[in-house]
């Protein structure tokens, strides 16, 4: 029974490497061609003439930012909005603008630009004014705390005049 029926091996099996070692070169070529034919028939392609892509030297842009150097759109003048105005390197355009405007006004003044490392006299005087009060407060007793008022700025200045008994003048 087994001799009557020839076992038929599948095409894929025949294509495997170990099956082809015994084959002639001709049969190998034939097999290869058949495979290529199958593959190329399965591949889709466009039936168009070959299109040459032209390299375009023109770029289209719809934005005005490239065309004109525009300033940043948020501006503040004369200190109206401190967040927008003085600080921030992002708004350096304003600083330049501000500096330009100010520079025009100050062009005639002589500019003394010396780097000041020392503290100026005024600052020292201001410092000592409040210093006395601060240190004094440290040693004051609870009853005396009323004598030391705090300014609007938070500086502590001792009250100069103490309230004494005023004699009635008849």
């Amino acid at each position, binding site marked *: 029974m087994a001799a009557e029926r020839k076992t038929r091996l599948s095409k894929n099996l025949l294509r495997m490497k170990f099956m082809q070692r015994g084959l002639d070169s001709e049969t190998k070529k034939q097999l290869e061609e058949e495979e290529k034919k199958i593959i190329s028939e399965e591949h889709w392609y466009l039936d168009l003439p070959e299109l040459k892509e032209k390299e375009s030297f*023109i770029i289209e842009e719809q*934005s005005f930012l490239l065309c004109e150097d*525009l300033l940043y*759109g948020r*501006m503040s003048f004369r200190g109206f909005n401190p967040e927008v105005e003085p600080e921030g390197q992002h708004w350096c355009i304003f600083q330049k603008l501000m500096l330009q405007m100010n520079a025009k006004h100050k062009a005639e003044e002589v500019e003394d630009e010396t780097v000041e490392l020392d503290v100026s006299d005024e600052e020292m005087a201001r410092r000592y004014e409040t210093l006395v009060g601060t240190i004094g407060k440290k040693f004051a007793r609870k009853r005396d705390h009323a004598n030391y008022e705090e300014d609007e700025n938070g500086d502590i200045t001792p009250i100069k005049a103490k309230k004494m008994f005023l004699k009635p003048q008849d």
Partner: protein
Amino acid sequence: MAEPASVAAESLAGSRARAARTVLGQVVLPGEELLLPEQEDAEGPGGAVERPLSLNARACSRVRVVCGPGLRRCGDRLLVTKCGRLRHKEPGSGSGGGVYWVDSQQKRYVPVKGDHVIGIVTAKSGDIFKVDVGGSEPASLSYLSFEGATKRNRPNVGDLIYGQFVVANKDMEPEMVCIDSCGRANGMGVIGQDGLLFKVTLGLIRKLLAPDCEIIQEVGKLYPLEIVFGMNGRIWVKAKTIQQTLILANILEACEHMTSDQRKQIFSRLAES
């Protein structure tokens, strides 16, 4: 019958395309074709003018040209789509043959990527706000695209927003954000209380934001104020009193049609009062 028709067709198809270089600063109309500098040599009166031999091959000598608003690419040429004056900017550093554009005037804004605009929040839906920017559809603004975005820290319906577009083309709904690529606000976000929002033409905004604009400098000297310019034609101003705000708004609206002398007169009168 065929002859006059063909002649008419030829004349309608346009007279010979002009060189862009010769038309700079002049008024151009939609439908005109402009030649770029490299082509005009080739298409000029053939052979009559001697041109110096260039050692480079022609392909290498072509530079990239950017065609800006109002122009379109048409083969190798530029096609004008808006009427206005043709402008050109030389390339700053090296690459490219510069930018050509048409300086036109219009009131209707079309969203463009990268533009900073003032929008009005009209609705909240899901995770996003709908912001009216004056275009064909409202832009979407995500809740998270603010610096320091938290649940409490959100704009409400009716607020004014200063932001920029990240997506803006004719096929999709425009999207805007209030932070830059690094995540910082950089001046964008909710615009504060009070103040006045009004609308002007787009050309005026560009004129006012030019680096050498005298109007802004003069206005800034009057009194403390804050201005925000949106590229969509909207300006928001705020000053200390309502009267000052209104004066400012009137000046900015009127300065489009005033000569510089008239403007200086008005400013000097204001400075006196």
